[in-house]
């Protein structure tokens, strides 16, 4: 029963990881920008939701505020930080350092405005109930699962059918195709950032209710997203999502056998094994070599 219970928590965690990781993978796949500040987007969205609930706004309004903050922040970074660096042919690591600076700035701003303490939204949704002897499930589990499924279904059909969606997929591989479609690479890059940042919102909002938020909350989510996008195969949304789920489950299940301190490391063992033995990831088409 312990394993089943852990599997359930793992799936809940993993579903939210999957969304955030897919956001990172979408941005990276389309623009080749290593958006290390994706975790900061997550933190900002979560705090926006907390702010809204403190102001007494209903949760849909809070969700919209979180969405607006996340998308706005993503677009701002794309325009004000990444694009200028890439204009100068800045190397991959230049982007990385700049993004890291942004992470520090966001964390300090949150500390200055919300304080450094842990904040959480209290809701009966996160209260677990015994549904089978020894198996406790909270409603938030079903919510997380439903949100993940719906969003992935919408995202999948958008990328497969809509013109802009197809353009997004083509952006990194075949810029010529874009011109043929009459799409601008610049606008598509903005679209990738908007969509990718939006994908961090569900995880952040539900995270505010389940694990709670602290100013440095984005770091772990960011690392998981990175790991997931490699395990899944760089550029593959489906892979990143599946790997996010996998990492969430592994991280939780490992507690049944080892000290909890290994749970974060366990995800990275999976990552390391993949890199050594299957560097193309779950769904990767092109191997890096």
């Amino acid at each position, binding site marked *: 029963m312990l394993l089943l219970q852990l599997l359930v928590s793992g799936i809940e965690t993993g579903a939210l990881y999957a969304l955030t990781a897919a956001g990172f993978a979408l941005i990276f796949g389309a623009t080749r920008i290593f958006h290390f500040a994706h975790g900061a987007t997550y933190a900002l969205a979560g705090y926006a939701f907390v702010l809204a609930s403190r102001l007494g706004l209903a949760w849909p309004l809070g969700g919209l505020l979180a969405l607006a903050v996340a998308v706005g922040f993503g677009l701002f970074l794309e325009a004000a930080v990444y694009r200028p660096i890439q204009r100068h042919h800045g190397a991959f690591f230049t982007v990385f350092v700049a993004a890291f600076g942004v992470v520090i700035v966001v964390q*300090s701003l949150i500390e200055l405005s919300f304080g450094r303490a842990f904040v959480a939204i209290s809701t009966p949704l996160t209260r677990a109930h015994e549904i089978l002897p020894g198996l406790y499930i909270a409603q938030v589990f079903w919510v997380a699962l439903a949100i993940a499924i719906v969003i992935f279904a919408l995202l999948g059909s958008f990328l497969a059918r809509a013109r802009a969606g197809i353009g997004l997929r083509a952006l990194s591989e075949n810029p010529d195709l874009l011109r043929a479609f009459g799409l601008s690479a610049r606008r598509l890059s903005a679209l990738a950032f908007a969509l990718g940042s939006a994908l961090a919102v569900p995880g952040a909002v539900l995270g505010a209710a389940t694990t709670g938020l602290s100013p440095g909350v984005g770091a772990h989510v960011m690392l998981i997203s990175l790991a997931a996008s490699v395990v899944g195969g760089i550029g593959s949304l489906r892979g990143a999502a599946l790997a996010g789920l996998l990492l969430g489950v592994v991280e939780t299940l490992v507690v049944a056998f080892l000290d909890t301190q290994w749970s974060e490391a366990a995800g990275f*063992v999976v990552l390391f094994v993949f890199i050594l033995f299957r560097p193309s990831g779950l769904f990767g088409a092109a191997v890096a070599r």
Partner: protein
Amino acid sequence: MIAYLLNLAQLAAIFGLLSVSLNILIGYGGIFSVAHAVFFGLGAYAGAHVALDLAPDILLAALAAALTAGVLSALLALPALRVRGEYFVIASLGLQMLATTVFTEASDITGGLGGLVGIPPPTVFGVSLADPLAFLLVCLGFLALALAVVRLLMRASFGRALMALRDSESAAEALGKNVPLLKTLAVLLGGAFAGVAGALFAFQEAFVNVESFTLDQSVLIMAMVIIGGAGTLAGPLLGTVLLLALPAALTFIPGLPPTDIGAVQQLIYGLAMTVLMIFRPAGLAGRLAGRR
């Protein structure tokens, strides 16, 4: 004030050595590692154990640190031979996260979060280096040695081969360069120097624990190299001095409520990092691509 500046100068020399060693990987080898704090840590633990269990001789400690970090740098060489680019960055990130956990858990060797305490002041051939100035000179000596080695190697065929594979691995292979060997050597060299820096750090702090060898530290070292200018001799030193002096200088800001100092310092620090990268993407000592 003098003692404080000496302390800061010692730290600058140690981190200078560290960023020079990472520059061998990032700047010359194109091996983008965010796991450098691992080798820094391995060296620090090795050096601390030599000092605590054998003798606080700085040369002995540095040798043990270089060997430990150098040999275990194979852990980094392994993924470096398999994958490149972003894949490798993430692989090294994985190594860093694993190492942090191992450093925390292996408390018999590392002392865990409690760390190794009471590391005695260093000696060299029995002469005490307890005087901060003497220790600073030794640190600078190691830094000068590392700079000399880097300068010598990078102007020789080894350096040309390494930079060739950085710019195009397949073209380097086509000219007869043994890419796996070159990468392994670069990682070993960088790892060994990072280990030496770790041993010096252990003596400098008289205390080591895992908190000094986390991902944040790795990113900081990387930022020193990138902000200073990867692939240049002086760049990493410039970046080191800047990133160490900045927080130190920020503590002199007057008029802030004490409880907000930390956050405001971090804010300015992060902002400086981002702004520098926007306006000097090739680093302070680097030239802008396409504008030469």
